[in-house]
């Protein structure tokens, strides 16, 4: 039955990269769990089906066969199920809980923000994607990991190289080599951190994994740190830049946040609903199962389309609009179930408690640069690709 309708047959990768939302709207309408040949997966596009499948991790497994992520990073917690996953996850969790995020990390995020802004405040213009969001996310991630000696530029290069590797379905040799070089760089940095932190535990991720009740081995730490670097940098960067763009397009909403700082968090949740930084992630069925009207065979590869869930008209009124005053909503852009984002509270603090309020406070009359339009791209990861702005220096 599924194949007869074939709502996904015409979808192309080019179209998804440029603007995936029209294709998702059509899939939600016509065939919410559809085989899409261009991505070689079934795409799951309805909010309710995604919530339902994340409640059944034993059927919808994260341990995908032939995963390029495993090839590039090793077997990380993100691609494990059940107790094997929980052991590594538990080891990493403590420093990312809301309390240490507020008491320990937030003052450090604030320093990162102020130092970066000091570097360009007098210029009166900047590309806040390149000059702020990228380095801000990288420097904060280096701190959270427990890297004292890694430059933001290296971390950004490793992140990009590892991500390109996990998406190298075209088997391009140069991409593998660049990812391997990045992996080697991470391995050495982890070794140095482990030597340092072995003697002196600190509230960092590497330290937590090393000193956990059931400690992770150095190899396990290395794989997970690659996943943190590949996956913990883009999303805060992209949500920071994308949400800032939305706030600059809607000055009344920005002003509402400035007047009532409790609203910054709502602006953040609305940003990641509107454009989910992780637009799609993989799962694989362990048995035949029905989902959203489609019968999936065992070992079917799925793409869980969070980007589409955030625009689901059954859940959100006028879903394509950015509106932080919408009535309380339930986005699922941090995923669900056992793999629910480990960095969700850190990301909220970085972006909505530190970056946005500080930028609006320090850069007077902050506005979009009318001569340089913003560009968009991506579907697995999506956000603005630049953010040219001006202010009164």
């Amino acid at each position, binding site marked *: 039955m599924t194949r007869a309708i074939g709502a996904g047959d015409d979808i192309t990768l080019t179209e998804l990269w440029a603007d995936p939302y029209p294709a998702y709207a059509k899939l939600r309408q016509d065939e919410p769990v559809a085989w899409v040949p261009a991505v070689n997966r079934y795409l799951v596009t309805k909010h309710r089906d995604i919530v339902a499948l994340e409640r059944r991790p034993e059927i919808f497994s994260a341990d995908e066969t032939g995963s390029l992520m495993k090839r590039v990073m090793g077997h990380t917690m993100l691609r494990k199920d059940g107790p094997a996953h929980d052991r590594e996850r538990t080891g990493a969790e403590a420093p990312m809980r*809301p309390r240490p995020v507020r008491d320990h990390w937030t003052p450090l995020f604030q320093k990162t923000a102020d130092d970066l802004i000091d570097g360009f405040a007098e210029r009166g213009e900047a590309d806040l994607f390149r000059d702020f969001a990228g380095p801000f996310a990288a420097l904060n991630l280096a701190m959270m990991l427990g890297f004292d000696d890694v430059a933001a530029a290296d971390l950004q290069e490793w992140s990009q190289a590892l991500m390109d590797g996990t998406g190298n379905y075209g088997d391009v040799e140069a991409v593998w080599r660049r990812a391997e070089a990045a992996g080697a760089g991470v391995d050495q940095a982890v070794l140095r951190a482990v030597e340092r932190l072995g003697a002196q535990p600190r509230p960092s991720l590497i330290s937590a994994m090393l000193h956990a009740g059931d400690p992770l081995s150095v190899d396990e730490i290395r794989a997970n740190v690659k996943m943190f670097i590949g996956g913990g940098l883009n999303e805060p960067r992209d949500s920071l830049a994308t949400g800032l763009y939305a706030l600059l397009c809607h000055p009344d909403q920005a002003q509402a946040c400035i007047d009532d700082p409790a609203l910054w968090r709502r602006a953040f949740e609305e940003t990641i609903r509107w454009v989910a930084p992780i637009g799609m992630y993989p799962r694989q069925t362990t048995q035949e199962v029905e989902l959203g009207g489609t019968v999936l065979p065992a070992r079917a590869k799925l793409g869980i389309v969070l980007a589409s869930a955030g625009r689901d008209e059954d859940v959100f009124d006028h879903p394509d609009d950015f509106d932080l005053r919408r009535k309380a909503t339930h986005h699922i852009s*941090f995923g669900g179930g056992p793999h629910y984002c480990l960095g969700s509270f850190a990301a909220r603090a970085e972006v909505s408690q530190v970056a946005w309020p500080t930028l609006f406070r320090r850069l007077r009359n902050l506005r979009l640069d009318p001569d340089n339009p913003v560009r968009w791209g991506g579907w697995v990861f999506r956000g603005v690709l630049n953010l040219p702005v001006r202010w009164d220096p």
Partner: protein
Amino acid sequence: MPNVNFRHRDGSIDVVDAPLGSSLMSAAIKHPVDGIIAECGGNAMCATCHVYVDAAFGDRLPPMAEEEDEMLDGTASARTERSRLSCQIVVTEEMAGMTVDVPADQV
């Protein structure tokens, strides 16, 4: 099976049959109770199963572990003395007739 009342902000109440030994969160999800989201599936990782428990029942609940205490600092609606994560509360007979308030926001 004890009944637990989930009271919404508009005063309406969902009376939930809560199976002994299950978590209060899973009983609410099964019902389902609007406003109990439980994104992480009960792993004390998301704080989207937040409830305010009737003070009279406070001492009939299991004590709060450190993780739960630290997670409650991240709730979307303000934490109070009555705040708990419903996924960390295992239902017992003593909870029959207990009322919990559902917060305005979970995300």
